[in-house]
């Protein structure tokens, strides 16, 4: 996985739940690109069109709360979301995102420091977030190294494949 990503911001508020990220009626879909067509449909049916060239989501508190559906981060990843930064995450969403190789970063104060459309660059290795539009920067604590390894391997399955094959 690329350890540095850039892109324009699409901003959301607090408590964005996985039902609005991917409504329950689409859980019978299997292909991640089919899931992506409905990403964030509960809040903005135009989201997949906006995200397709690559975006960074900035959320408020408790991003991804509710259902454990892994189809929610999958839908985001395959719609073009490169990274989600939020004030805090619901823990299942956080783990799911890492496990499928969608980078997630907890960053206090990020909501107030960015606006829709701002150009962000995130460096996962250094934990630095730069807002090229207004010049603000954030330094977040690095993820524990085993989590970084899962992300750099591309997800938990790839990580397990590598670990098991090594044995």
């Amino acid at each position, binding site marked *: 996985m690329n350890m540095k990503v850039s892109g324009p911001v699409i901003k959301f508020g607090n408590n964005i739940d996985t039902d609005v990220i991917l409504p*329950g009626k689409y859980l019978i879909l299997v292909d991640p690109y089919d899931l992506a067509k409905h990403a964030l449909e509960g809040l903005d049916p135009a989201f997949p069109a906006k995200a397709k060239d690559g975006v960074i989501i900035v959320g408020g508190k408790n991003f991804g709360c509710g259902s454990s*559906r892994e189809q929610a981060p999958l839908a985001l990843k395959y719609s073009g979301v490169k990274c989600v930064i939020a004030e805090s995450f619901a823990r299942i969403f956080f783990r799911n995102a890492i496990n499928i190789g969608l980078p997630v970063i907890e960053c206090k104060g990020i909501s107030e420091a960015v606006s829709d459309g701002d150009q962000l660059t995130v460096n996962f290795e250094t934990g630095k977030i730069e807002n090229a539009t207004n010049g603000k920067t954030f330094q977040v604590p690095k993820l524990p190294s085993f989590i970084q390894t899962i992300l750099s391997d591309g997800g938990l399955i790839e990580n397990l494949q590598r670990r*098991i*094959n090594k044995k």
Partner: protein
Amino acid sequence: MENREDKNMNITEKILAKASGKKSVSPGEIVDANVDVVMVHDLTGPLAVESFKKIGTEKVWDNKKVVVILDHQVPAESVKAAELHKTMRQFAKDQKLRIYDVGRGGICHQVMPEQGHVVPGTVIVGADSHTCTYGAFGAFATGIGSTEAAAVMATGKIWLKVPEAIKIDVNGKFGKYVTAKDLVLNIIGKLGVDGAIYKSAEFTGQTMREMSIAGRMTICNMAVEMGAKNGIIEPDATTKEFLQNRVKKKPDFASLKSDKDAVYAQTLEFNVSKLEPQVACPSSVDKVKPVSEVDMPIDQAFIGSCTNGRLEDLRLAAQVIKGKKVKDGVRALVIPASVEVYKQALAEGLIETFTEAGAVVCGSACGPCLGGHIGLLAAGETCVSTSNRNFIGRMGSTQASVFLASPATVAASAVTGKITDPRKLEAKAK
């Protein structure tokens, strides 16, 4: 654990220490825990199976510890759902797993304890966020995603960050038609939907000790709606009685208690004696008001789900609705949480009571709770529901509204056609 040199721990810390082979653990510590049971259902299982196959291990780590339950899109409402079910049946067959198929089990969180898969003191993970329900039995139980479930199936282990704990101490006696659901809605209303984020929510106090297993399950079920990693209640004689004849291994109840000096990040106190029925308004579970402040006509009333589809819930709803009719223009759905609950409800005449009132009783499934199938809502419609989430689009149209309440409140509302205090309905009838 009586040794004074030992660290004081709460029940969640004790379970996680034991599961990771440590003498003690502290909040923030990351442990590699041995998993006792992993559960997947028909909407999270197929993705787990796909991931499992990619890992490249042939067999699950222990076929006695992996449980498959078909409950969300059952009976299959579409060819796509039928294909998912087929995938799960085949996987269960190939791996020799316990599978609860259509008509044999019911909603996963009801089936797991009923069928003896939940043992106090164990670590249970499930590919469903309401896996936290099993904390009602003094187990550490939490929701995970499909890929993580696949990893657990392959390795039998999971990394967990030991959570800080919030102690929620509840005292007082419930008034008539005020229930565990009203209490948990009240707690979430005060704490907020992220009030216990990343934390363990431990429920203590006289009210919890006197509460039935069904009520405890309702409370722990909704721990995730306050953001908690797990909800937990110390097991006691009530737990023992429920588990008798269900669980083979006798758990060590004595060690499953929080130490007197266990550390909590926060302690909250609640008293239920004066609590009135509560309603969570759209579209967040913490938008909670007393029923007296909610004036809302409804199109649908739903009694069921892993939160409130148990026998005790159906008895309460039947008591409210008996001899009355569901209001014209309103449809009422009743879905028993499991086949066992369905059979008991049938034997007690509850199914007849609901049917006579004009409610439709469906086979055990998740139903409209997650908007998968059975009883979805059209744009502009309103449902009052005993389930656990009222998010935008949760039960169908993104333009529909969902209010959450107890089985008594939902039953009373079905009769009047608007959200109604069950105590007032009874007073009127007299």
